[in-house]
């Protein structure tokens, strides 16, 4: 028999859909939109276009996000598919949010719960630790990423473990976990499809929820052909996903240990909660004989009942889906196995002391601010050259390294959309602005951008006036001088119209709207 008759035979499970079935459908024949599903086909056009790569990392030198963004823009097929895909997710988020009358109240309550917990974090962490220990869990504390990696390595070595399956965890990305373990001969296998694609391509995740969203199916076909031996000419998403399932499953079955991240850690019960669509955190936690959970200390919430707030917000904000396919609550070890929890600080306790920035610790990693950001959508997550990209990255990354990430807070149009969609009401765009000030005062800003700061004048240097301006305008673009938006330093501002171009000069607008009759502001 010729192979052409059924190239899927032997490779593909008989129940996998044919390439002609673009997406799963419900009983009424309508396209299903749960998980990360797009509401309509968003196929990057053939022919193949080389995937634009991320920012060039040069040690501790400031990331040139603009340079990487230029290269992303120079790949129009990627840029268009990326932009459309994320905007589609943003629209799904809006529809999901509008479906809940109490949405704004939920955001406010979630924000207050986080503020309360963060301002009593030592108490709640102590409560969590006591509950976890009472549940028979081994609790570890790590001051930084390196300590986290050493602790996990130590656990693995004590058990003679040589392979570990894991679910997606931004914390372990922060810690450089995979690189560290590779150097110690531990085989790490990512089990989230998007994260696995990124691992096989030796790239960092470009989005907190959709790690490979910057790749087209053609890119994935290339990566899998190279690493998994799939047919390089078969770019059917069903074929690619199934190939990954079939090659990863044996690795899950023989893994010595499993590790998950943590979406929420419940102080009163010592529970780690993970939210996934693939069920891969449950495979990681329930199949191998040794179970580890890595937890950022800011993930604590006081009580189980608070999940009734956060679970309703998380997936709706992230993907426009009412809930993830799996919401998993790990509280105590399975009979005859060990369960370890590693609580990681890695800069969080320092950030708590930063008056203007501590509320960024409220972040639940939904990615809504990324999906809505015009800069992010048009430059790709890897252009930021940091663990966290998009608006939330602009305000978190400098806390890890002020010099290296000193330019990132300038990769924003300041349109405030990030703040408006944030489910825990972090004032993201105000913190971006505050970071610009801090970095300018500390001389972390390159000369060109320092000039821009000076020229921006009164408004940019006076938060009160700036806030007043943006509180009435639906877009700060109308409140910012044109050169601040279309400045050559803002590479992402090239080659396209900004969403709301100023209709009049800033000064005219300012005189008309903000000065009193005496001409005083």
């Amino acid at each position: 028999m010729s192979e052409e008759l059924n190239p899927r035979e032997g490779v593909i499970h008989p129940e996998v859909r044919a390439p002609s079935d673009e997406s799963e459908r419900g009983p009424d024949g309508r396209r299903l939109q749960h998980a990360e599903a797009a509401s309509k086909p968003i196929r990057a056009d053939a022919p193949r276009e080389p995937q634009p790569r991320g920012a060039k990392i040069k040690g501790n030198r400031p990331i040139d996000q603009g340079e990487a963004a230029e290269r992303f823009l120079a790949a129009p097929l990627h840029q268009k598919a990326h932009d459309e895909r994320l905007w589609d997710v943003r629209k799904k988020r809006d529809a999901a949010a509008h479906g809940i009358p109490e949405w704004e109240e939920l955001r406010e309550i979630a924000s207050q719960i986080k503020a309360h917990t963060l301002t009593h974090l030592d108490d709640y962490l102590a409560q969590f630790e006591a509950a976890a220990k009472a549940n028979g869990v081994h609790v570890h504390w790590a001051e930084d990423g390196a300590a986290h990696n050493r602790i996990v390595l130590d656990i693995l070595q004590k058990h003679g473990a040589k392979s570990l399956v894991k679910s997606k965890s931004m914390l372990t990305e922060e810690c450089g976990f995979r690189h560290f373990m590779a150097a110690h001969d531990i085989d790490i296998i990512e089990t989230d499809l998007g994260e696995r694609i990124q691992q096989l391509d030796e790239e960092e995740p470009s989005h907190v929820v959709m790690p490979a969203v910057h790749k087209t199916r053609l890119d994935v076909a290339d990566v899998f052909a190279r690493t998994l031996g799939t047919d390089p000419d078969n770019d059917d998403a069903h074929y690619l996903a199934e190939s990954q399932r079939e090659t990863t499953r044996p690795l899950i079955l023989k893994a010595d240990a499993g590790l998950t991240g943590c979406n929420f850690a419940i102080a009163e019960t010592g529970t780690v909660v993970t939210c996934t669509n693939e069920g891969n955190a449950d495979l990681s936690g329930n199949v191998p004989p040794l179970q580890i959970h890595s937890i950022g200390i800011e993930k604590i919430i006081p009580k189980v009942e608070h999940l009734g707030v956060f679970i309703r917000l998380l997936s709706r904000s992230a993907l426009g889906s009412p809930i993830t396919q799996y919401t998993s609550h790990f509280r105590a070890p399975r009979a005859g196995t060990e369960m370890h929890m590693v609580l990681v600080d890695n800069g969080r306790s320092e950030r708590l002391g930063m008056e203007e920035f501590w509320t960024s610790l409220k972040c639940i990693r939904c990615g809504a601010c990324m999906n809505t950001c015009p800069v992010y959508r048009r430059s790709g997550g890897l252009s930021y050259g940091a663990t966290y990209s998009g608006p939330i990255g602009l305000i978190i990354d400098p806390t890890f390294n002020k010099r290296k990430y000193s330019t990132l807070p300038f990769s924003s149009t300041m349109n405030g959309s990030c703040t408006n969609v944030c489910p825990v009401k972090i004032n993201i765009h105000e913190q971006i602005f505050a970071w610009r000030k801090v970095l300018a005062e500390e001389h972390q800003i390159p000369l060109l951008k320092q000039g821009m700061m000076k020229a921006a004048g009164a408004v940019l240097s006076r938060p009160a006036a700036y806030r007043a301006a943006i509180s009435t305008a639906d877009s700060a673009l109308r409140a910012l001088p044109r050169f601040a938006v279309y400045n050559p330093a803002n590479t992402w501002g090239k080659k396209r119209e900004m969403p709301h171009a100023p209709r009049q000069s800033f000064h005219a607008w300012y005189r008309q709207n903000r000065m009193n009759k005496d001409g005083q502001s």
Partner: protein
Amino acid sequence: MSAREAIFARLKANRPAGDYPLPAVPDFAPLVGDDLVAEFTERLARMGGRVERAGSPADPFAPVRSRLAGAAVIASAVPEYSGNRDLRAAQRPQDMADVDVAIVRARFGVAETGSVLFTESDLIVNSVAYLAQHLIVLLDPADLLANIQAAYKRPEFGQSAYAVLHTGPSATADIEGVLIHGAQGVRSLTVLLLRRTAPGPI
């Protein structure tokens, strides 16, 4: 100073000024109507799952007959159906790797989202709910709750070693947003509405 002590010392020293009380969470009106079965059915369908009413008392599994007939290995965690893989005799979670269909009973369902909850005692072997190719879930319509808020008032979350809400099958759309069922876990999830024959576990 231990890492723990150092972290706690910094948290105390860096505690933000101001009073941030823990807000009370009001009971929000359910987004669903009174017909919880209809709401659950519709919402689970949107999440890629399927709901069937049980067949006659003599043959309650009739609606999933074709799924069961096509399965070589069936692991049942429920008294209503005898499979051919004994979950209680399983030595390792990996032993579930060749299961075609797993049958389990949900503690409760959530109409607002189309979710069902399992604990380790419902699954007997946790991994079966992920390694099986297909999942059939028995749910007593009387065990339907209106919303997620009601779910999180249930005692299972404070008592179980493992509690998990499943809302449809394993899914991914990580490649160009194309939705695919059976990403890493089950390829399908079918809820069979079937009353409990014995009182539910406490």
